[in-house]
């Protein structure tokens, strides 16, 4: 039966498709194969370099496959105490920031998703206004200084606990849940917060998975805040550590040996080690992201289309 149906569908679509359309389809598939290849290629190249000997990398003979294969770079990176400390700082920030961010964002979104809340429009406007206008870098920096947060790990996640964009996505998702659930729980004498944590949050897991990913990636990838606020090298997260590693050594590479920057002379990390560091730093995201993809497509759609 099923087979018949498939062949029936095939012949129908074959009849319907004109020659021009068929050519279009072929080119479309080829085009996206090319796009995917362009996206993946820099990674594959980097992976090959990280597994090749430094001589092979410098001579430019590595493209897709490693030359003179070795794993020493990974051993070096994983046993480098500076790298590992930066890695741990990043893990700490990402975990603490994501947990706190999810809690704060859910708490903020829940009341705003209830039309009966007094002053709801005003509070929403208060949030949205911060998306349209901000105090800017310097006043924010001076505030952190006044709060004694400069050069502490707190400054890397407290000021970005609630992303208004994420909050609105969650709010819209909450609004899309049926009201009857709340009413029946109210009958049983549940308080608002009980309903939030016992009913609404468990029903919103897809959107929370999405937002958790957004927060975690945001904290993991941030280098800007740490570049501004962190001076102590023990507190530097991975991205800042990598930035210093890459930027310093690459200025000499780019210049083909002509030194344009004094720092660059002192800091020339072998390319294979740079490549391995980049890949290790990307690994956590690459491991988590594909599993959450089905959630975030749905989550973002519900949040952004309505918003």
């Amino acid at each position, binding site marked *: 039966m099923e087979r018949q149906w498939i062949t029936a569908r095939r012949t129908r679509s074959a009849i319907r498709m004109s020659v021009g359309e068929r050519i279009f389809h072929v080119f479309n598939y080829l085009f996206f194969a090319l796009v995917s290849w362009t996206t993946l290629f820099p990674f594959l190249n980097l992976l090959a370099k990280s597994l090749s000997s430094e001589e092979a990398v410098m001579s430019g003979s590595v493209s897709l496959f490693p030359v003179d294969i070795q794993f020493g770079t990974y051993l070096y990176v994983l046993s480098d105490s500076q790298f590992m400390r930066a890695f741990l700082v990043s893990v700490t920030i990402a975990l603490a920031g994501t947990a706190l961010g999810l809690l704060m964002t859910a708490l903020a979104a829940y009341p705003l998703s209830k039309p009966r809340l007094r002053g709801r429009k005003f509070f*929403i406007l208060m949030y949205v206004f911060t998306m349209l206008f901000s105090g800017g870098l310097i006043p924010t920096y001076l505030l952190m200084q006044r709060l004694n947060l400069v050069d502490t790990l707190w400054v890397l996640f407290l000021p970005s606990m609630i992303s208004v964009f994420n909050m609105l996505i969650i709010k819209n998702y909450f609004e899309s849940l049926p009201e009857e659930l709340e009413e029946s729980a109210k009958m049983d004498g549940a308080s608002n917060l009980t309903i939030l944590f016992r009913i609404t949050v468990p029903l919103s897991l897809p959107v929370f998975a999405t937002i958790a990913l957004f927060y975690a990636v945001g904290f993991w990838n941030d280098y800007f805040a740490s570049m501004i606020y962190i001076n102590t090298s023990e507190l530097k997260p991975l991205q800042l550590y990598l930035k210093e590693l890459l930027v310093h050594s690459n200025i000499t590479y780019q210049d083909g040996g002509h030194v344009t920057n004094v720092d660059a002379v002192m800091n020339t990390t072998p390319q294979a080690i740079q490549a391995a560091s*980049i890949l290790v730093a990307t690994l956590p995201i690459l491991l988590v992201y594909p599993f959450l993809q089905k959630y975030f497509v749905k989550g973002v759609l519900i949040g952004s289309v309505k918003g």
Partner: protein
Amino acid sequence: MARLKLDNAPRLPSPSYWRKLRGDIRKDWDLYIALLPGIAFLLLFKYTPMYGIVIAFQDFNIFSGIGDSPWVGFEHFERLFQSPKFAQVFWNTFMISVLKIVLLFPLPIVLAILLNELTKMWFKRPVQTIIYMPHFLSWVIVSGLFMDLLSVNGGLVNRIIEWMGGEPIKFFLDNSFFRWLLVSTAGWKEAGWGTIVYLAALSSIDPQLYEAAKIDGANKFKQILHITLPGLVPVILLMFILRLGSILEAGTEQILVMYNPVVYNVSDVIGTYVYRTGLGEQNYSFASAVGLFESVVGFVLIVGGNYISRRFLNRGIW
């Protein structure tokens, strides 16, 4: 987003209003409590820096603080608008942003329309997974990837150039290439992710429209032109207004990782300039004035863009 109703002139709330309010708060007290951490967060981390903008009109001294620093009015803004350095920074910001808008804004729309035509799920799903991925990488990583690919010592691109008989190009140190480098890496990173919003809009177009068009003999191209594109217009407009609001934010995080003193004259933008003059040279007041200029222009563009869109196209983000 709901639009605030302004047709009711403000009236003093009647006593019964307060009674109702008190009743509501008593009934939903925990709902109002849940509101507080968020509001406290906004007031402390978002609105206090907005108050801090006053230092743009002061000669701010870190030891005197905002309270005791002398007021100088618009002195910093006068200096700013006369400074040739700022003119250059403004021009760079504008150029990079316009390049990015012209070349990169339409890209996700085209990609989404084409992606929508892929019918084989075993192909479409992995393609989506792959092209969304760069969005989740930091600018440090992305610039690391491209520094590697474009390096003069064993970078693949320069090897191809040499193989074809050309001279290797120092992309990261070349004033004529650097802006293109910024635009293309930004495209590599965000174009795929940008399709999500448009794909959502595409999935909400009524399939019957396509059926009807097919019966009327419209080919694929005509269907895209007359059904798909019109269906996307509201989202395109919304995205464009939002994009307009960040026209003076030409990608500070990207540029701060990728640029270097050799290419300052083509890549120093408002954000990087604020960073260097403000935090590097501790010119707090002047840098705040530059930052305020950026914020105000962004705000005016987004509010103005929304107003024009509402007025003439009856659509807006709020």
